[in-house]
């Protein structure tokens, strides 16, 4: 599958004796070995990365994870922790024959405190189910993203996912209060703190947040959840230049202030793509070069509506926006969000997508998409014609966080297109001191490009950390660093 890398000879090979051992500690239903059963765990959700694992283990408790890891540690068997397998950088599937440790059977909510809003839950709880549980109590999970119906909260913490409301609720580095994990030798680290403030020593959990399964298996998390807003509003508008998108953002910060909860931007190309594959009505019938979705979340309906109206009217008067709509009910609100979240899915329908999830200083953010199109044309590629492999080059993302998703949709993956894009994209980002991975992580896909965002001294420190916690390198090998 990957001719450029070889299986690490230090790792043990799975034997019948290993299987027998796992059978002695796990019920039969937690051990998968049939090709058919394995395939869903070997292939990632984009169908881009395909491993050859012969074994999937589905422990039901932290103790079971610990026994598995103790054995794997002793036998130097490499493992891949896997959550909902929705990751976008090939980190969640094996490269060779690593054992997949799926957390999907570890899915109970352990406790919830109505006063503090702190939830303690197993890593394998599905994000959407957790959020629905919280909704019943008037709270909200501080993270929301398109894959919410499948991804695990443990997976979210392992990738330090950003998502649609980071602008409002901040990064998981702030809202995760504690992590319980099983390390490479089977040690259970009980770090399920429930304290907002705790300055007693190195904050080790921060290393696990965003470690993508390379330091340990996260088995439980404790998360500080905010109150769910009683009143939400969604507006969607069209603008004719990226400059105006920035103006609308600055104005949103000043006019909407504390009730602003999302500011998402999309280019025309991305909208045409959704229109082609979605049954939903376009929020705006007329064409614009850019579109923005603004969401507010607050506690007082008339106060929020007045603010939003004033903001929108101000934008129209200043001729920053050309046209816009305001969702009149919950259904319209949901439909507009579905429309925004439909972008990645509609791109995937073309065959394959080269995804670049980058942080760039705001003023240059969209320049990257334009430069990318120009670069491809310069290299002799056509975009979006009947014969061309490249179907579309689109830009969208969480503008409020300086986060652009540059997506190049192709009919089929080709080394040719890949070499036209890389390392050009990464060099472009490096020049502007951006990040080559704003929220999707490094995984298998971005590992070779880490140097474009981090200097050697930093990379050396990271390697030291990895060696301390996983000296044999069995945790999610061939990835991250």
């Amino acid at each position, binding site marked *: 599958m990957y001719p450029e890398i070889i299986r690490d000879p230090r790792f043990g090979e799975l034997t019948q004796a290993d299987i027998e051992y796992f059978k002695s500690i796990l019920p039969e239903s937690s051990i998968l070995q049939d090709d058919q059963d394995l395939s869903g765990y070997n292939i990632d959700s984009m169908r881009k990365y395909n491993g050859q694992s012969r074994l999937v283990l589905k422990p039901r408790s932290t103790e079971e994870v610990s026994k598995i890891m103790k054995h794997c540690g002793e036998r130097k068997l490499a493992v891949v922790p896997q959550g909902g397998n929705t990751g976008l950088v090939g980190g969640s599937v094996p490269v060779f024959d690593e054992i997949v440790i799926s957390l999907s059977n570890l899915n109970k909510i352990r406790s919830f405190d109505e006063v503090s809003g702190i939830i303690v839950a197993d890593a394998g709880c599905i994000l959407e189910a957790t959020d629905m549980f919280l909704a019943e109590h008037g709270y909200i999970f501080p993270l929301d993203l398109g894959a919410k119906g499948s991804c695990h909260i443990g997976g979210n913490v392992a990738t330090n996912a950003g998502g649609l409301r980071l602008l409002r609720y901040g990064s998981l580095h702030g809202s995760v209060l504690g992590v319980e994990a099983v390390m490479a030798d089977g040690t259970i680290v009980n770090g399920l703190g429930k304290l907002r403030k705790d300055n007693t020593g190195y904050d080790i959990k921060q290393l696990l947040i965003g470690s993508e399964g390379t330091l340990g298996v996260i088995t439980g998390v404790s998360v500080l959840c905010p109150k769910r807003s009683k009143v939400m509003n969604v*507006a969607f508008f069209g603008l004719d230049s990226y400059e105006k998108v920035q103006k609308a953002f600055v104005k949103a910060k000043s006019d909407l202030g504390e009730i602003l909860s999302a500011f998402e931007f999309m280019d025309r190309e991305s909208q045409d793509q959704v229109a082609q594959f979605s049954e939903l*009505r376009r929020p705006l019938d007329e064409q614009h070069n850019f579109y923005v979705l603004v969401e507010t979340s607050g506690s007082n309906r008339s106060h929020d509506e007045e603010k939003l109206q004033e903001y929108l*009217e101000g934008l*129209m008067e200043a001729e920053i926006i050309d*046209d816009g*709509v*305001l969702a*009149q009910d*919950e259904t319209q609100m949901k439909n507009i969000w579905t429309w925004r979240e439909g972008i990645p899915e509609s791109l995937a329908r073309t065959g394959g997508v080269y995804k670049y999830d980058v942080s760039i200083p705001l003023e240059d953010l969209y320049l990257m998409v334009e430069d990318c199109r120009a670069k491809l044309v310069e290299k002799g590629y056509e975009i979006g014609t009947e014969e061309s492999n490249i179907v579309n080059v689109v830009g969208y993302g969480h503008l409020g966080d300086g986060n652009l998703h540059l997506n190049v949709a192709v009919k089929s993956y080709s080394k040719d297109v890949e070499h036209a894009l890389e390392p050009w994209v990464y060099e472009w980002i490096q020049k502007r001191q951006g990040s080559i991975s704003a929220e999707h992580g490094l995984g298998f896909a971005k590992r070779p490009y880490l140097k474009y965002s981090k200097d050697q001294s930093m990379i050396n420190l990271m390697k030291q950390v990895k060696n301390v916690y996983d000296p044999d390198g069995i945790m999610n090998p061939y990835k991250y660093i």
Partner: protein
Amino acid sequence: MPPRLNIIVPVKRVIDYAIKPRVNSAKNIVETNGVKFSLNPFCEIAVEEAIRLRESKKDLVESITLVSAGSAKAQDALRSGLAMGADKATLIECPGIDDAKSLSLEPLAVAKLLKAYIDKEGANLVILGKQAIDDDSNQTGQMLAGLLNWPQATNASNVAVDDDGIVSVTREVDGGSETLSAPLPIVITTDLRLNVPRYTKLQDIMKAKKKKTDKLTPSDLGVDIAPRLEVVSLSDPPKRLGGSKVDSVDSLISKLKDVGAI
């Protein structure tokens, strides 16, 4: 040239479609405190259809007037419809009706109010939702047609007006569709598949603020709205019981037999 259409679209403000209604502990009203209300989805389709008729042919539509009966808050429904593109609106403010007691404004009372309003103001086409999603009565349109003694076409999935002012309405019926036609005036009630309502434009929301809303009361129209029905009790639908997983087809069949499903 067909006669120009003067369309009345009666609209209702209801608990938002996406919100799960809850019955209060006394089991006599649906909780409305802090709950989001919106324009009834079938009414939204009715407003959209009126606007599409206007867009379909120049000069076909002379006026689109919204009418809502209820508490002062019914203004919200009128404002939504005006922002979608209706020309003007009338609020029939009913004393004693509020969010919690909205069910006591019964379909017959509403139909009488609308009849009196149309007698007074004139109209040759009424388009309204086939039902409101709060009480699901599906009666107002039919009662209104009866009181006005106009033809009616219910559950419309398509509406067309020809040059002679003949209205053709397609309705979905068991096993296919049926098309009715009748001359104006007529009452049409809308089904879900008639159209997909547009999003409301910002410009139109701003313009709607300047549009006129008249106010009337039931006594202005000489209608008695006292309820004739008594709500004996309300209850939530039974809770869904959790499912369980079976590990083979055989055990599925035996489970189904146990509960007498097969």
